């Protein structure tokens, strides 16, 4: 058997045909459409559509800023909570009931997650009913809007809800593979306090090793669709919702904007993937050295 058999070649060819080629063709079409070289509106090459994001009232840059802000906030809160959990209840996360319960949020599809958050956090939701039972409000309208709000609070809550168990489990695995317990013991023998051991040994090491996953998680949250579709507002919209809205509109004039969104999102994602990629390779070298 040669190092690359015909079977492998066939598998790779199928991978190219089913995954890489359609993706490349789709992105090429999007790029062509955005410069007037494809689609029903096509009248030859033009940069006109690319000027639109800079026009007053256009939502594309606001949508990118909003998506990035929501993704950064959700990821920061997720990491903070997951780190606190791994520092306090790591043994329970490792085995036992909590280990099993932590998989429940991971089994929540985006549609279900959005539905649950809507039922909990809307004006007549469970949180509002608890506030009513405590005498804090009299009507649903008095409940602060934390879903379908300007700041994406509902979207952030939803992403934190699924992100925390994922990162808590990842950190627990890294704790073992990086032998953090032994390093913490070593730090203790040279006089480090509990807080110093956590802040100077465990947290930097966990964040360093998890960095590529954090970047990939950031890309995933920026592009999330189902959750903001139900929990977001008309403006600003998350980038995937805006792309779909522009794409699905009957007004063909909006289509180039959908493809501009898609291309800008692809470029941003490629940049973040490349950063994660570089770090992964640096870590591989560190490990093999």
């Amino acid at each position, binding site marked *: 058997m040669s190092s690359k058999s015909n079977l492998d070649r*066939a598998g790779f060819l199928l*991978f190219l045909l089913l995954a890489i080629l359609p993706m490349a063709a789709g992105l090429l079409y999007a790029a062509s459409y955005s410069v007037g070289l494809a689609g029903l509106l096509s009248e030859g090459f033009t940069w006109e559509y690319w000027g639109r994001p800079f026009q007053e009232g256009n939502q594309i840059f606001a949508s990118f800023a909003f998506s990035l802000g929501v993704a950064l906030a959700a990821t920061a809160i997720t990491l903070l909570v997951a780190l606190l959990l791994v520092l306090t209840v790591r043994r329970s996360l490792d085995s036992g009931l909590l280990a099993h319960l932590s998989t*429940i949020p991971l089994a929540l599809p*985006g549609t279900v997650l959005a*539905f649950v958050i809507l039922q909990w956090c809307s004006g*007549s939701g469970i949180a509002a009913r608890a506030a009513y039972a405590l005498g804090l409000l009299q009507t649903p309208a008095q409940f602060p809007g934390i879903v379908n709000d300007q700041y994406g609070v509902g979207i952030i809550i939803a992403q934190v809800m699924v992100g925390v168990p994922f990162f808590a489990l990842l950190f627990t695995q890294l704790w073992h593979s990086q032998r953090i317990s032994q390093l913490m013991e070593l730090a203790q023998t040279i006089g480090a306090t509990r807080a110093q051991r956590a802040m100077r040994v465990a947290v930097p090491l966990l964040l360093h090793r998890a960095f590529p996953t954090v970047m990939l998680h950031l890309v995933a949250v920026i592009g999330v*669709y189902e959750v903001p579709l139900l929990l977001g507002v008309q403006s600003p919209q998350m980038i*995937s919702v805006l*792309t779909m809205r522009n794409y699905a509109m009957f007004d063909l004039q909006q289509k180039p904007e959908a493809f501009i969104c898609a291309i800008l999102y692809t470029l941003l*994602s490629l940049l973040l993937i490349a950063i994660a990629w570089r770090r992964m390779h640096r870590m591989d070298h560190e490990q093999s050295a």
Partner: protein
Amino acid sequence: MSNQHRIFQNALVAAVGMLFAAPMLYLLLLSFAEGWTFPHLFPPRVSAGLWETMWGREQGLVGGLLLSILLSVVVAVGSTSVGFLAARYVSYHRWRRGLLFLSYIPFVMSPVVLGACIHVVFIRLGLVGTVAGVVIAQLMFALGFAVIFFVSFWNAERKSLEEAARMLGATTPQTYSRVLLPISRQPLLLCFLQTFLFSWFQYGLTLIIGGGKITTLPVLVYLYTGEANIYYAAGASILLMLPPLVMLWGNRAMAVRFGR
């Protein structure tokens, strides 16, 4: 560990466990509730009525469930088998890094955004609104994951095993069937589970490429939510969550075994 510290830890574990379990418990309660509106903190009445009527009256739910299972199994089998072979090719290729980077793009990027870009390609191929179209679109993303998953499997240890089999006179099919497949059972199953879940969870991509004609369970949950039919949405959500939960628990047990 002091007594106080132990009590604090136990309380924290209980609270975190409750938070993790809360979505499932809430959906279960909602699926048995009647007239559970503001300001009731708990359902005023409970009944199994929804679970009795859901199957009979809502033919769409049974169809959606079966379609979701079919789609997910086809996507998982296709991406696992193709990814297994493609990853071997990528692993031993001189452009390994570049090819692997390519695999990360469909794996990480938003299926909806890329879905909007490939929509026209699928229209030209007559695949929009068909089950085959949705399968191919989902395969595009699941394959990226499968290749990344298996690339680390094809390491120097596997290569030396293959070489040993070849030296002993094994043909390519024999090397696969007698050497490689027996040692790959667990990773193959893990990859199958993960890609099954990817397809099982898909909403946006199914909606774009399915053109609203392919009504899977996630599409139904969204439909019920849009109609403010919260009890049906809860029932469909539980059906949607059960297979992933069973799989994730199985996956976890296997990953622990595989890790060892």
